């Protein structure tokens, strides 16, 4: 503990230097904007700005502080377009659309934006506190998570998400199946065989997650808006001046706390990230909310908004743990940050804390400051962001379309992906017309891919013996939890009914 405190003292000494403080603020602000743009997320923001940070000739700790600021700024900003436009800025912000956008449509955009800023702040802060206290220990534990454990984790995720079942169970399952099918496209890593690529080199490595999110969600939403405009059903929203209330915070405090922990632990695991974390958090909260929650979630429930937001920011912090303590990147973005460390000739891992404490602890301290900075930057801007909704649709829709196209093209530079988001958008629009919810498609895509890969890895390790799946207490614990999230709400519902009958 003493080491941690003295380390943090060193770190704050570095991070509070006026120049570094300015860089944190700059990074957070730029990151928020990058995250808010559909198609551009943390991974691209950091990748695009890495050479610039390097080229400016900053000392390594300053450059890293700037990049880290962009990283969590972008995690923060992803929610803005989710809430206002129903277009997720990046993959971790998909679940935020489910309750965030209905709130905006109800004239509560300001409330949604400010509440999510608070949830993000708490999630991010809890993550960084846990990281500074238990980082190395947690990382040691996280690497013992075997493919068989990931299979159990995915079962748990599926179980908690079964509550997402919307109006029609069949359509939800079909949606998840479509997602699974999309995930099977590309070279199968366990056999080296190309599946469903039809000889197209562009999808040999599979369809990028970002393309699916921007296409199925973003483009489909834009088509939907255009359709509404053409048919004259589009209602203009009044300028809303709503803001988060104390009652909202009181109602969501346990949600935020639980989801911060869920998000952090899922983030620490090297194989999973913000998208899985926010999905599991949302599913768990909906389960916990009981029968009343089943009705209100998805229609603008504050808990449904706070849950994924706390979780995805906590996951972003969690992903830093294996990178800093073991030198293993836990996500795409941390892989780039790892590359940045190596560029500056710093070897990440346990020795970094001993050899370059000013960098390791400076980075951690900058995360504390960054979280506060993001809250301070974001709350006053809520009104400004909310005004975006009053921009007439015939200006806004093409603008978003252009931003999404430019964003995607600037990252991948391949025109094929522009066709891809267009076709996926049309496909998503048809699904919406048929009353499908798009969230199960996305979740089938993310979780299904992880489930298949890890199941096959586990079976390769065991030589085909299925016993490996239940061979370990971590798996058993997760299966137990999965059972619990399915059974508990049913049991509690029955008990409540019995008690009501007993009273009568």
């Amino acid at each position, binding site marked *: 503990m003493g080491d941690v405190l003295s380390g943090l003292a060193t770190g704050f000494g570095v991070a509070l230097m006026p120049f570094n403080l300015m860089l944190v603020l700059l990074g957070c602000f730029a990151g928020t904007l990058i995250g808010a743009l559909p198609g551009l997320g943390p991974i691209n923001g950091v*990748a695009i700005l890495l050479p610039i940070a390097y080229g400016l000739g900053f000392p390594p700790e300053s450059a890293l502080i700037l990049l880290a600021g962009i990283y969590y700024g972008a995690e923060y900003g992803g929610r803005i377009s989710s809430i206002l436009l129903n277009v997720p800025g990046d993959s971790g912000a998909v679940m935020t659309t489910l309750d965030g956008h209905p709130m905006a449509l109800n004239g509560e955009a300001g409330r949604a934006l400010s509440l999510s800023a608070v949830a993000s702040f708490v999630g991010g802060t809890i993550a960084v506190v846990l990281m500074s206290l238990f980082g190395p220990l947690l990382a040691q534990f996280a690497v013992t998570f075997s493919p068989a454990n990931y299979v159990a984790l995915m079962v748990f995720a599926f179980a908690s998400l079964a509550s997402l079942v919307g109006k029609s169970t069949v359509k939800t399952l079909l949606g998840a199946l479509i997602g699974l099918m999309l995930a099977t496209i590309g070279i199968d890593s366990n056999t080296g065989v190309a599946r469903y690529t039809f000889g197209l*080199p562009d999808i040999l490595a599979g369809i990028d997650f970002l393309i699916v999110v921007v296409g199925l969600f973003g483009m489909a939403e834009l088509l939907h808006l255009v359709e509404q405009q053409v048919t004259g059903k589009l209602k203009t929203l009044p300028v809303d001046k709503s803001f988060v209330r104390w009652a909202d915070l009181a109602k969501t405090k346990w949600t935020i706390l639980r989801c911060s922990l869920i998000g952090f632990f899922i983030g620490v695991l090297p194989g999973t990230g913000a998208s899985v974390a926010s999905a599991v958090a949302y599913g768990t909260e909906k389960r916990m909310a009981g029968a009343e929650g089943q009705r209100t979630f998805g229609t603008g429930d504050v808990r449904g908004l706070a849950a994924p937001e706390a979780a995805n920011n906590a996951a972003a912090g969690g992903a830093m743990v294996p990178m800093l303590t073991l030198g*293993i990147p836990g996500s795409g973005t941390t892989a780039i940050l790892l590359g940045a460390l190596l560029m500056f000739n710093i070897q990440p891992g346990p020795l970094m804390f001993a050899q370059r404490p000013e960098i390791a602890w400076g980075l951690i301290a900058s995360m504390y400051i960054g979280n506060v900075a993001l809250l301070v930057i974001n709350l006053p801007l809520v009104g400004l962001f909310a005004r975006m909704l009053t921009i007439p649709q015939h200006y806004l829709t093409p603008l978003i379309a252009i931003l999404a196209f430019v964003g995607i093209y600037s990252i991948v530079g391949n025109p094929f992906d522009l066709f891809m988001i267009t076709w996926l958008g049309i496909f998503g629009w048809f699904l919406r017309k048929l009353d499908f919810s798009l969230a199960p498609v996305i979740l089938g895509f993310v979780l299904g891919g992880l489930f298949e890969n890890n199941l096959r890895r586990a079976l390769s390790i065991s030589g085909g013996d299925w016993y490996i799946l239940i061979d370990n207490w971590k798996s058993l614990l997760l299966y137990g939890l999965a059972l619990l999230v399915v059974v508990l709400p049913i049991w509690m519902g029955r008990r409540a009914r019995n008690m009501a009958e007993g009273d009568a």
Partner: protein
Amino acid sequence: MTLNRMTGAALLAATLALPTLASAEVTSPECIAPAQPGGGFDVTCRVAQTGLADAFGGPMQVTFMPGGIGAVAYNLFNTTRTDDPNAIVAFSTGSLLNIATGKYGDFDENDVRWLGTAGADFGAVIVKADSEYTSLEQLMTDLGNDPSSIVVGAGGSVGSQDWMKAALLVRETGASPMDMRYVAFDGGGDAIAALLGGSIEVYTGDVGEMASHMEAGDMRVLAVMSDERLDGAFAEIPTAKEQGFDVEWTIMRGFYMGKGVSDADYNTWVDAFKAAYATPEFEQVQADKGLLPLNLAGDELKARVDENMATLREIATEAGLIQQ
């Protein structure tokens, strides 16, 4: 802006864009990394960006073109951007393997102009620090007796170069690579996590990525798959060859251009590489990026690629990656 100046600018742009100019100057050099940011191709391009900055009066732009394990870029430079004098594309031995196994479609190694190398990395056989294996020989004996008794894993799919390294080891013991128990992870980071967590026993990675783990002492490199011992931090690691096993895996990293690029432009680039190779700065850039020296440009590289392709086709056929 006045009308005259606009016309002037348009004329200038038109002149620059004229594709028929045989020896259009290399005006805006660009390095294309055919992958997401952060990987090996990114590193390769960064070497050119910094290492060739003097030749082109500043660092060149790096563009990412992910998709199809490099196939998208290879196809693009064989169909549309065949004569772009400004663009170089990063490749590695992995790309050559993909060409050999037909993953890049109908195009082969004669359809682009091989330009120069950025450096090299070498395969490495890695176990956890507390593993029962302390020498390659012990591992090879066990692999030879029963290849399915040891769980080998790495960051690439079956048929990738990570898999190939493991397959070569098994083949050297006399057993069949088909009997190997190989687990494919999503990138080297996940594979290292699995090794540290005990899910896999052997990791066939690259020596370059071990730089950050050497001092920490959490992993042991049983052998490096190079011809000779490496320098610096890796000097202590014995080669597979000196332990009596004839397995070698060099990961060559370099650049190619479109086939239609004029000789004059191609030679401008080749000369730029050759000039850079002679400077201590380039050596430093290579070292900073975790690459070991391997400097080949122009015809030298073309000869090496041809030689490699023949070997790769042979190995891939033996391993069953090329259907006869």
